[in-house]
């Protein structure tokens, strides 16, 4: 028992060290790495939303919808209404994502499996066509450049992203450990039994979906602030599929897994694009195939393997 406690302590220390490293990263890492980490964290928030649904057996192929809604809400607020207060922009992106999810969720909660995936995809494509065609408001195919002020430097946005990411990790963990989170897992294994226990599957799915929509909007808003540009492709089906890709890449077993997956994904994408501009998709596809066939629990299962090794090593020291 004491060994377990000591191990848990080590675990917490590792997370704390990781957080401190990220906090001090701008001191010793170059700007582009900071940027990639920020994008990785922001997209990781969206992926966490996808993962929470995946834990209930629901494949959301439409999280681009909330992602794009959050991003465009920030862009429109900055460009058209000239609102520059981050304190206002972040809740706005949250509301845009969560509000959309509260609407679509009313319909989506009736669907399961592949139909859930396809209907959510259709919703996302609807937003894509709207963003794509109504260029008076949305800037059309080119999207919109966001007019950021001088004082809101990229460093400010990095820390903003990091702090919000930590908040989301805490909330995500609370969600997974909550009654709703456990119920979601039960829904994946057997819906009818959940109903027999007296719980409402439709409510469980709806609330999880809205929560996940909030995360999608927040991630989108942060990406918009970091990149300074929004485009309709944020809602296209390839963007949606990328989120599911990263969800499986990271794994669904731990609240930190989506962030690990997302940051790794961003770095791999950047390097693949740099070294072989014509075959970067192939690299990503190849990695995904390797993960599916050889590491089906995702990258996070590697850390669990390390955990086991460490415990074995501690045991061997005792003997």
């Amino acid at each position, binding site marked *: 028992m004491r060994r377990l406690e000591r191990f848990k302590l080590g675990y917490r220390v590792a997370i704390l060290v990781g957080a401190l490293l990220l906090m001090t990263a701008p001191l010793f890492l170059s700007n582009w790495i900071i940027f990639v980490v920020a994008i990785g964290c922001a997209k990781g928030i969206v992926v966490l939303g996808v993962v929470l649904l995946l834990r209930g057996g629901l494949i959301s192929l439409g999280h681009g919808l909330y992602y794009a809604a959050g991003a465009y809400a920030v862009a429109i607020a900055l460009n058209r209404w000239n609102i520059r207060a981050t304190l206002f922009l972040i809740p706005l992106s949250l509301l845009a994502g969560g509000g959309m999810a509260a609407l679509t969720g009313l319909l989506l909660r009736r669907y399961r499996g592949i139909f859930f995936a396809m209907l959510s995809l259709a919703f996302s494509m609807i937003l894509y*066509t709207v963003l794509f065609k109504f260029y008076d408001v949305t800037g059309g195919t080119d999207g919109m450049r966001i007019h950021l002020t001088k004082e809101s430097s990229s460093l400010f946005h990095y820390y903003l992203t990091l702090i919000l990411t930590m908040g989301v990790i805490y909330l995500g963990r609370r969600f997974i450990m909550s009654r709703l989170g456990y119920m979601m897992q039960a829904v994946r294994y057997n819906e009818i039994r959940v109903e027999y226990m007296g719980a409402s599957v439709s409510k469980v799915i709806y609330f999880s979906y809205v929560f996940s929509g909030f995360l999608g909007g927040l991630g989108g808003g942060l990406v918009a602030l970091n990149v300074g540009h929004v485009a309709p492709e944020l809602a296209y089906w390839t963007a949606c599929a990328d989120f599911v890709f990263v969800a499986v890449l990271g794994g669904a077993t731990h609240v930190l897994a989506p962030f690990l997956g997302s940051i790794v994904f961003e770095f791999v994408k950047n390097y693949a694009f740099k070294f072989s501009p*014509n075959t970067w998709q192939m690299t990503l596809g190849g990695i995904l195939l390797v993960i599916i066939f050889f590491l*089906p629990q995702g990258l996070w299962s590697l850390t669990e393997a390390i955990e086991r090794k460490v415990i074995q090593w501690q045991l061997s020291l005792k003997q």
Partner: protein
Amino acid sequence: METVVIILFDGIGFASWLFMISAGITFIFGVLRILNVAHGSIFALGAYMGAWLAAWFLGGHYPAWLSFPILIVAALLVAVTIGPLIERVFLKRIYQEEEVIPLLTTFALFLVLEDVIKLVWGIEPRFVDKPFSLMGQVRLMGISYAGYPFLLTGIAFLCALLLWLVINRTWFGRQVRSVIGDREISSAMGINVPRIDTFAFILGSFLAALGGAFTAPMISVEPGIGIDVIVLAFAVVGIGGLGSVGGAALGCLLVGVARAAAVHLYPELELFVIYALMIFVLILRPKGFFGGIEVRRI
């Protein structure tokens, strides 16, 4: 009146084009229970192979009409090489997995194939418009219209007929229907289920590649054509009901006519109507028009 006729012509032309792709997806889903994202790449491969072979063929001194059989040969080539490769090497390992795994596996294959195409044929667009101009113009109901879409409609009809005959009138089709009904019992009755899977996948891939090969003369064949196609096909099979070829035909007609109407009346809504239609149908009929009833787990 004229607009209505043009909308109908455009819609049916688009529908026949879409049918060749969607029929394959829905057929593969019926047998293998996998929504194949890589279908878009097979379509693109068919288009490239068709454009490449036809261009090479038209370079020689052969009669130009022979380029049509060449397009069919191109589709066959793609189907019998890529089809078994995908099904035997990757898909057969994941039939038992949760739904997200097959979806992502085919997505990964889609990403890989997109770049394979770029590696093999380069990134410059290719044009083969000879077969298109060969069909000339048709005067119908007072309107002059390109002849090629009618050829496409004819081919789509032939495909539908062929698929119906294969499924309902052959020994292979009887086995396929049995596998669709119940994989385990089919296997117990002595049907070689893995072989049926492979052949069904090849047949579905052939339809997509054929669609691609016959699209090649209408468009500039360039990287990324498979990306837009696949999501349209998803809308169609969602409307028609997954696994139902007849449903795919109905879905194509609805989508084709709705899109053509939007293009002529209010172009901003061109793509919007397609997905709005899909959502509308899925709200009224959650499994699409001809989607089957699924057994719930207790």
